[in-house]
């Protein structure tokens, strides 16, 4: 950006509205979610059948473990299983 007239600054400020309530906090709490998923990830590493079941339906696998399958937790599990 080269020009910094006031109108343009105001226009650019308006572009970055906050995400809906809770999204940012959920992403900030991702390290805790990751820790909560440690046992599922460990089982998936040891048991190919369990892993296949989890990968086939992440939400159902989380619910079966008593974990609320929020978008944040599902995303963490998906990425963890890809990384292993």
């Amino acid at each position, binding site marked *: *950006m080269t020009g910094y007239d006031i109108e343009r600054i105001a226009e650019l*400020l308006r572009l970055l509205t906050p*995400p*809906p309530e809770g*999204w*940012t906090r959920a992403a900030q709490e*991702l*390290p805790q979610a990751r820790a909560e998923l440690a046992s599922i990830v460990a089982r998936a590493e040891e048991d190919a059948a369990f892993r296949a079941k989890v990968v086939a339906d992440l939400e159902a696998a989380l619910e079966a473990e008593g974990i609320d399958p929020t978008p*944040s937790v599902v*995303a963490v599990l998906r990425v963890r299983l890809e990384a292993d």
Partner: protein
Amino acid sequence: MAVPVSDAELVQRCRAGDESAWHELVERFSRYVYAICVQAFRLSPHDAEDVFQEVFARVYEHLGRLRSDDAIRPWIAQLTRRLCIDRLRGGSRESPAELEEEAGGVDETLAALDDALTVRAGLDAVGDPCREILDRFFCRDESYRVIGEALELPAGTIASRISRCLAKLRAHLEGRS
């Protein structure tokens, strides 16, 4: 004038396991990621939330792979763009280029969002009370009355404060302060 932590320093601290740095990194880029999802690619709220969370999950997991700590911003932009396209492709036979074309003006929007993030960083550097006043007015669309009540300021002074804060931000962005 506040001295914000650089992106590179934030990345280094995150890598070292500093959870407060992770909180700050998410705070710094959350609006940017959200804007790419809903403004550049026009994802539905449901899809946008999934992509938003997956972006940060991937950033957290793969922070060690980042070649240069300064490159966090383009990396997040690229990652968000790719995940948005993947989401749009679900069930679609169109190519990524066709999907971007369909979304319309993606590159232009991304360039504007990049500029917006630079202005946002300037706002963080200028600090409060200007940061809060400008954020409430321009980003949260709050009225003078609501801002005045929240900050315990006379509503009649908000317009002039906004004007002064914009001038201060402009001076900062032009390197005059």
